[in-house]
Each structure stands twice: as C-alpha cells, then as structure tokens.
C-alpha cells in the first residue's frame, strides 16, 4: 500500500527526469560541450537507476546502467558528443520511458517482445561508446570480500570447535568517525549467536594520554551462525575495514591457522592462547598443541601473518581529477529547477479535482443563500451573505489557480517532435516558442497536446516549403514553426504558426469542390475557404507522406478543440505563412456568467463575452419584429431571439432586451426578456441525450435549484452572422 504510493512517486519522478533529459539532450545539439546539460542527463539516468533498483525493477536498472556508463564516459570527456550519440541517447531515453510506462501499466514483470528487441538493439549500439569501460557487475551493497592470505597445509589436525573465531582490534579513530564497535557486535549478534565475547582494554593508555574520543578496545569473539560465510562476517565490519584489524578463523580451522592467527595479534601469545580457550574456540589440549607446533616453526614462517585487512584497501580506485571537477561543477539549470521544486507540494490531481468540485457545490449553495437573503429582505443577512459570496468567489479563484499550469512544458515537448520530423522530412526546420509562461487549467492542457501535434506536423509537412523553394522566394533556407500563447478576454489563445508557403485559396476551393464540400456558385470569404481544410476528408497534399496528408487530422483537430468549448481559426498569407489560432476557455469547471430570463427559462452566457445590454423600447420592438438585425450606433448587429431559437412557449415579457455578445472579433445580439445579472455558473456537462444540441454548451444549477442552460455563444454568433449574410446576399 505504502510501497504502491512510493511507486507512483517513482513513476512521476521518472517522467519528469526523462523530460529534463530530453530537453538537455536537445540542448546538446547546439552546445555539445555544455557540462550542465551533460550533468543533467547523467543525473536523470543515475536517479532512475538508483530509485528503480529500490523497486526491484531490474529491467530498468540493467538498461539504465549501461546508459549511465556511457554518460559517465561522456562526462569524463572520454566519449565525444556528436549527433549520432545524441540520437542514440534520445532513443535510449524513449526506451527507458517505455519501460517506465510499462511498469505504470502494471506489466512490470516483463516488457513486451517489441520493447525487449528495442532494448537489445540499443544496448548493441551503446557498446560502441562503452569501449574501454571496464564492465563492472552490479555489486550489491555489501562490499566484495577480499581474498585473504591462504594458509598452506601444515602438519597438525583441525580443531574441534564448530564456531567461528573473530578477532577485532579497532583503530583509534573509529568512534570519531561515527562507527561504534557496539553496533557492529550487536549486528553480528543478529546474524547468529555470539557465544562468547572477551573485551580487551589493554591498549588503553594511562589516564593523562587517554583521549576519551579515541577507541582503545579489542575483542575476541566466539561466534556461531548457520549459513554464515566468511564474506558475511567481513561484511559486518565493511565500514571499518580501514580502521580495524579483523581476523576470522572459520570453524574447524587447522591448528596451524590458529598459530598464525595468534602470531598476528599484538597481545602476549600465552595470554591470547588463554583467551581462545576462554572463548571456547580452542580446547586446552589444542592450545598446548598449538604452542608446541609454534615453537618448532619459530624459525620459519610463523611471524609474518596474514596482511592487515586495512592495507589491502588502501590503494583502491584512483580517479582522474577531471572527473571529480566535472561532478562538482553542478548543473545550474537543474539547480534552479530544484530550487523551485523544493517549494512545491505534490498532490494527486484527483484530490484537486475533488476540491474544485466541492468549491463548485459551495458556489451553488452560496447562491441559494443569497437568494434566500434577498427574499427575506433582512439587510443584516443580506450583508452577511454578500461577504460570504465574495469569499466564496475568492476561494473559487484560488482553487482554480491551483490547477493552473504553464503551457511551456507542453510546448517544450515539441522541440523533440520538430527535430525528429524535420529529419524525417529532410527539411531544416526550427521551433520558436513564446508565451511559455501563459497559464491555463491542467484539464485543458492535457487535452490540447494531440491537436497541437497535428497542427505542428501539418505545418512542417505542408506549410514549410523545400529549401530551394524558400531560397527562390527570398526566405531563409531554415523554416520556423512558431508556438505562441497568450490570454485574451477570458480565453487562452494558442497559436501554431509557420513561415511557409501559406494557404492557396484557389487550390483549396478547387479541392473542396471536387470533394463535394461546396458548390461552384458559393461565394466564400477567405476565412471560410481556409476553414474548409478542417472538413472531414479534406487534403490538398500533393504527396501523401508518412506524417500527415492522409486527410485525417485537421477535422479531428477541430472536433477536439470544439469539445473543449474552443474554436479554431486560420490566418494565412500566400508565400508568407499560416497561423492557426486556437481559442480555449481558461477552465472547464466554472464560469462567471450572465443570467438572462426568457419566458420561464433561464440562460447563462459567459460574462466576459457580454459587451453591453440594450433595452428595447416599444418603438424599436415594433421596428425589428420581422428583421434579424438592428442598427447599433451605425453598425449592423445581427441578433437572435432566444425565444424563437429555443421555442420558448411562455408568455412574452412586457419588456425585451438585447444582450450584445462578442466572440473572436464578431458581435451578435441575443434578444431576451429579462436581465438577471451576474452569476457564477458551475458547469455541469449535458447528458448524452443533449450532447448534440446546437447552441447549448452545458447546464448549471441556480441557487433556487432550477436548471439554467449555458449558451454556446460562438455557435450562436456564427448562426446570427450566417443568417445575416444570407439575407444580405439574397
């Protein structure tokens, strides 16, 4: 359960690291020696490997290990960064991403065949960069055991004891280093049974010289453990190998090994012998035997015992200083990122969604309270509820703010796309990003990735010309795709632009005609003609490429955007480029609405689309009874009677008002009976049954409990404008 949560953290962390890795890899293309980028890439692999190991994700660890090795060489300047290596590392990044996603999908045990094959292929390619790197096996935490000087068979039998004998002499610095002999011996006790311990305080100097922070103790330990080998015992003391003399005699060691053992210790031989007997490691008889043998061997090899463990360790791993410097020069970029991260709290998106749902309910409940207060005509209550609504409004804004994310991260993903696609197409195309800091709701950001992908690919494929054509037109050979975002009157606008050939009006018109989307007699504005490319089955690409041009895509783009209550428009200049403008609501959950009554029904329009309200006098009402537009301060304003539009049967009101709404530069009027003022609308999606109702985008619940419909203003404006154009044309 807890571990499951940790695994989720790992998945999220890995995705972020992989994204950072990709970004840095792409950065290397222009600055191949950037140590910060190299470090960031190394660290991503390093961390994924390290954390992956904790979850036993061996597949990820094994693959990432090789990548890390290569990156380590790059970091040390042993392997050069070139386009080929970057491409390979990008593929490796993708492969790690694939492995991570398969863990996320729960198929942790084994990657599928295809992924496995990719892995093998990549590992093969990595080999070229690994050359010269020592293939080191993944060592477990316990240090590998060092070979001990072996003892030549000598005359004399084995001792009786089936226990290990361990002799320890600690160096003076162990305590200062935070290593406590107590803890090691305790740990040893957990591995088996300590049958006997003798603590030797002999080395403690006279009081004045005795440093209370130094260690002066030695230990003789008789130890018995099932399934314990010498390496395991050495492992207990691995952290004090430099600071301690450790001698281990296995069970049933030969007498002569005891002799060597005793000879290697600093204490008096006879005393040690007694200690061994006391410990139970030797019997009295065995000791006598040992001492006798030792006498006879004195002239020989007896004195030089096994080399000190510490000595063996000393000359470990001399590393070139460059490597150290490189590692110390920390990556600035990642650092800045981390500074931010340490101020962040990670929470699950669905918790946030729940909060926003609750805030939505609170807004409704607040509206109900206000309504009651109004009816009761209690000024104090009215005052209190208005304070309350103000606070609720602030809470709503803060809650929505929590879910706001910058669009930059989404944009950045296209660096890779543009790079890959331009290679595929053989065109030189760069990506320019602006407005990356523009914020929008997470729920929106998640859904625009695909449409943007289509548009970017389309721009690269169809928009940007071949280099020769560009040169002929006096444009730089390198094409540019531009991603831009900004806020505009309660919407976020995301633009995908290119400096390519632009749309060819005639060609589109002809194609649409051929496909039967329009008739030859139709007169269409540029906007309308360009809009045709979003029709299903429309494609003008002369060559069908791998990427787009199959006639699917643009219509899907439009549908996706419209599903988000957004719109798409195209601006294009032949020879200069095309820009697709996507306009989306900032959030999908709550809108500041304007409430209007028609007959017995209530309707809501987003407040920021309302320009003004005009009361219609008796004379004007008569004047416009049969028409569909009025003269608004000298301009033609088409309008729609909501009463007619929604077949409202209720009695006509004594008064009528026109609410002027504007969207994407076009204006229209909505004729309603009653203006009911501002209202916070928590958007409830319409059920499936009403899904394709034109002109309605959702519903909301009023404080009174009644349902109000939220008008789809763009659709209504479109309708009004069309009506008007048709009338004008006829």
């Amino acid at each position, binding site marked *: 359960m807890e571990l499951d949560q940790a695994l989720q953290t790992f998945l999220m962390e890995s995705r972020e690291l992989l994204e950072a890795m990709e970004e840095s890899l792409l950065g290397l293309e222009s600055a191949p020696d950037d140590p910060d980028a190299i470090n960031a890439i190394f660290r991503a692999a390093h961390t994924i490997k390290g954390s992956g190991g904790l979850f036993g994700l061996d597949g990820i660890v094994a693959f990432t290990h090789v990548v890390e090795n290569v990156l380590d060489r790059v970091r040390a300047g042993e392997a050069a960064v070139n386009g080929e290596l970057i491409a390979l590392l990008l593929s490796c990044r993708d492969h790690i991403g694939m492995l991570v996603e398969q863990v996320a999908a729960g198929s942790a045990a084994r990657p599928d065949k295809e992924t496995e094959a990719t892995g093998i292929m990549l590992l093969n390619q990595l080999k070229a960069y690994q050359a010269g790197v020592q293939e080191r096996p993944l060592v477990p935490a316990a240090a590998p055991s060092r070979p001990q000087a072996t003892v030549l068979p000598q005359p004399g039998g084995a001792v009786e004891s089936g226990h290990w004998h361990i002799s320890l002499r600690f160096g003076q610095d162990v*305590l*200062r280093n935070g290593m*406590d*002999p*107590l803890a090691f*011996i*305790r740990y040893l*006790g957990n591995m088996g*049974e*300590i049958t*006997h*311990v*003798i*603590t030797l*305080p002999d080395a*403690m100097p006279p*009081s004045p010289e*005795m440093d*209370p*922070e130094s*260690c*002066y*103790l030695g*230990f003789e330990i008789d130890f018995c453990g099932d399934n314990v080998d010498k390496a395991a015992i050495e492992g207990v003391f691995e952290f004090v190998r430099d600071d301690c003399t450790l001698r281990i005699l296995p069970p049933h060691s030969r007498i002569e090994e005891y002799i060597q053992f005793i000879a290697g210790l600093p204490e008096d031989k006879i005393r040690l012998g007694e200690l061994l007997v006391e410990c139970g490691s030797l019997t009295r008889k065995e000791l006598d035997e040992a001492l006798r043998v030792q006498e006879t061997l004195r002239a020989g090899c007896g004195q030089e015992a096994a080399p000190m463990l510490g000595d063996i360790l000393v000359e470990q791993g001399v590393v070139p200083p460059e490597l150290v410097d490189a590692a110390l020069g920390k990556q600035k970029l990642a650092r800045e990122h981390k500074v931010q991260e340490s101020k962040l709290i990670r929470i699950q998106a669905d918790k946030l969604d729940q909060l926003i749902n609750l805030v939505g309910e609170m807004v409704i409940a607040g509206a109900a309270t206000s309504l009651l207060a109004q009816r009761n005509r209690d000024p104090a209550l009215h005052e209190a509820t208005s304070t309350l609504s103000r606070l609720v409004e602030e809470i709503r804004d803060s809650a929505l703010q929590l879910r706001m994310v910058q669009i930059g991260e989404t944009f950045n993903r296209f660096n890779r796309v543009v790079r890959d696609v331009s290679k595929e197409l053989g065109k030189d195309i760069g990506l320019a990003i602006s407005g990356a800091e523009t914020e929008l709701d997470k729920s929106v950001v998640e859904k625009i990735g695909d449409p943007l992908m289509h548009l970017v690919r389309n721009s690269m494929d169809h928009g940007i010309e071949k280099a020769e054509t560009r040169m002929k037109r006096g444009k730089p050979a390198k094409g540019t795709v531009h991603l831009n975002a900004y806020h505009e009157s309660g919407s976020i606008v995301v633009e995908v632009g290119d400096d390519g050939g632009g749309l060819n009006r005639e060609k589109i018109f002809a194609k649409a005609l051929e496909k039967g989307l329009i008739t030859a007699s139709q007169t269409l504005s540029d906007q309308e003609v360009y809009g045709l490319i979003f029709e299903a089955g429309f494609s003008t690409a002369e060559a069908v490429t791998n990427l787009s041009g199959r006639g699917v895509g643009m219509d899907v783009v439009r549908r996706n955007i419209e599903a988000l209550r957004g719109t798409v428009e195209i601006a294009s200049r032949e020879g200069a480029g095309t820009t697709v403008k996507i306009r989306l609501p900032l959030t999908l959950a709550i809108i500041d609405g304007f409430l209007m009554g028609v007959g017995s029904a209530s309707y809501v329009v987003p407040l920021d689309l309302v320009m003004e309200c005009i009361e219609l006098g008796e004379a004007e009402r008569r004047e416009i009874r049969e028409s569909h537009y009025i003269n608004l301060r000298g301009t033609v304003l088409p309008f729609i009677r909501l009463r007619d539009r929604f077949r409202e049967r209720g009695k006509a009101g004594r008064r009528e008002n026109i609410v002027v709404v504007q969207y994407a530069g076009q204006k229209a009027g909505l004729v309603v009976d009653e203006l009911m003022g501002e209202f916070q609308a928590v958007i409830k999606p319409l059920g499936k049954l009403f899904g394709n109702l034109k002109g309605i985008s959702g519903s909301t619940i009023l404080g009174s409990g009644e349902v109000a419909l939220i008008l789809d203003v763009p659709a209504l404006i479109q309708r009004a404008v069309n009506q008007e154009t048709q009338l004008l044309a006829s």
Partner: protein
Amino acid sequence: MTISIETGNGVCQARVAGEMTIYHAAGMKGELLSCLDRCTELEINLSEVSEMDTAGFQLLLLAKREAANAGKRLRLVAHSPATLEVLDLFNMAHYFGDPVMMPRHGH
C-alpha cells in the same frame, strides 16, 4: 548529559543523567577523574543514563582502572537498561564486579 555529585565521609556519589556518549566524553572524563581524586570511594549511579556508546563505556573502564591503581573503590550502581545492554554485549559485568540485574535473555 549531567553529572551531579554528592560527597560525604570520603564517599563520592556521582549520578550520571542523559547520554553517556562521545559527544560528552571529553567533559565527563575530567569530571569523573576529579571526583575520584577527591574521595576514597566513588559510586557511579547509572540509573538515568539514557544512551551509552563505546566512548561512554570506555570512561567507566578508565575510572575503574584508575581507582584500582590508586587503591580506591569504584562501584557502579543502579544500571539503567541502556548501560546494562552495553555491559552485557561486551561481557564486562564481571570486570566491574558490581552486582547487576542482568536482563532476562542473555545475548
């Protein structure tokens, strides 16, 4: 770590409270030895020792040895669980020769 000392009739009673660890070893060495200087019998009460490490244990060893060298008596009394565990692990209760209540399960 604090040591509170009471003296009377040449007997010094030192009560150690808190951590007997390396962090306090330097100060404690001086205090214990000066106690020992001033008396013929030193009783160290360990009942309030919350934590003891090897450095702390060594100080007891040192005090015991210095006392023996000077022909004085040193007694450890009222061992706290933390101190008992150390004496037990190092198998040194007999070295001090004081009556101790050993924990129920030896090693």
